[in-house]
């Protein structure tokens, strides 16, 4: 019966996914596209839930519901509206797309069927991770074990990429001076007492939840990446309500930049500490007397590093895109 539920949800959500992507193709207004991509993200998040990828769904939920929409909205201007409201793409691009698609579909005939336990992917690394991470690492969430211990190098690379992207945005938008003319007084959303009264009180809950996700990531879905995005979303709420200038009064822009870098440094420091204590780079087992305790300590610290970098990068992105706005 559980199988039937899975199949029904899978079919329904796949159909919705394709339909929402079609809607994005048809509409040309950037604002409409941003709204529709919000729905697209919700559908694909639910699909990840159906396919047992709770950690991935968690990340998609955190990112899709908040940051991606906020960033697109910060760039769109009213003058971007197209003349044409909705239309199908040109025949040439459709032809090219269909040709590519047919080739790819031909490729899928060699793929294992959906859910097939005898597929090659399930016989190489996964049995080791699933069978031994419980005794080697000692935390229940295998995704966190693999993310921060077995594939710690990879994750360090990802964190550096995020840091680099944040820095690139800072550089690209650094020359932006206030272009909005000063005579226009923008009434902030916080002047509406209904909105302000409730949402200001939600912010601490969001930050509390971010901390819960950060430290509960070893035992359930969650971890540094998700916690960072959620923490960022909490402060971005303040920025949306009262303007990004008010947000930067809470955390100075200089400290945001320092925070972005310090997360990467925390991560790298753990690796170097392991090196100094006689292990390999990012081998946490040497950090404490017993190897599982060492793994626990190492994972806790590097997850904090990941969370700090992601959180401050998100805040920095929001601040950069809204610089010069009232």
């Amino acid at each position, binding site marked *: 019966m559980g199988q039937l539920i899975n199949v029904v949800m899978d*079919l329904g959500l796949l159909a919705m996914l394709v339909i929402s992507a079609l809607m994005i193709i048809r509409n040309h207004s950037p604002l409409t596209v941003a709204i529709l991509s919000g729905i697209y993200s919700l559908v694909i998040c639910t699909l990840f839930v159906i396919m047992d990828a709770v950690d991935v769904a968690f990340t998609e939920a955190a990112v899709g519901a908040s940051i991606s929409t906020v960033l697109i909205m910060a*760039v769109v*201007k009213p003058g971007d509206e197209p003349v044409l409201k909705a239309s199908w793409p040109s025949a040439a691009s459709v032809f090219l797309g269909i040709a590519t698609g047919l080739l790819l579909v031909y490729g899928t005939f060699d793929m294992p069927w959906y859910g097939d336990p005898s597929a090659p992917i399930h016989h190489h690394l996964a049995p080791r991770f699933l069978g031994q991470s419980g005794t080697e690492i000692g935390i229940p969430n295998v995704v966190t074990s693999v*993310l921060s211990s077995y594939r710690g190098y990879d994750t360090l690379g990802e964190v550096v990429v995020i840091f680099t992207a944040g820095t690139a945005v800072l550089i690209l938008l650094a020359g932006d001076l206030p272009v909005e003319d000063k005579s226009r007084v923008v009434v902030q959303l916080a002047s509406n007492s209904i909105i302000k009264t409730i949402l200001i009180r939600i912010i601490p809950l969001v930050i509390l939840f971010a901390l819960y996700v950060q430290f509960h990531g070893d035992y359930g879905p969650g971890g540094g*990446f998700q916690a960072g995005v959620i923490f960022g979303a909490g402060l971005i709420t303040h920025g949306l309500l009262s303007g990004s200038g008010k947000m930067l009064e809470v955390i100075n822009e200089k400290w945001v930049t320092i925070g972005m870098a310090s997360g990467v440094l925390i991560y790298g420091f753990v690796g170097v500490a392991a090196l100094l204590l006689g292990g390999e780079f990012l081998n946490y087992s040497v950090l404490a007397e017993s190897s599982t305790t060492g793994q626990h300590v190492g994972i806790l610290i590097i997850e904090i590093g990941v969370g700090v970098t992601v959180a401050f990068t998100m805040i920095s992105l929001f601040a950069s895109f809204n610089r010069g706005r009232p």
Partner: protein
Amino acid sequence: MSETLPGLLNYWVAVTLFVFGLIIVIDSRNMIKKLVGLNIFQSAVFLLFITMGKVTDGNAPILAEGVNNFSNPLPHVLILTAIVVGVATTAVGLALVSRIRKAYGTIHEDEIYDKPEIEPELVP
């Protein structure tokens, strides 16, 4: 019967989304829509990876007592980080769009091709 129903369908949907992303990137003249198209492109790959990791009757890869059939955690790890990296790179793309708007006064490709660059003095 019910356990073979989706078969290769998930892959085909991933391919469809891939094609849709491609069409948007080729066809769209609006740079913001192009970036959303790139995101769809990206999520097609996410869908493909997660589909491969699923095991029928599996559980989320979080160890618990009495559960011994887990989906494959490795694709989850790859995609989890890719999502956050994806939003960061999208932000870089949006920042470029913002600079292009500064330089040309528009984000529509057709109009950009017609215009000379307008503001050398605003470039830092």
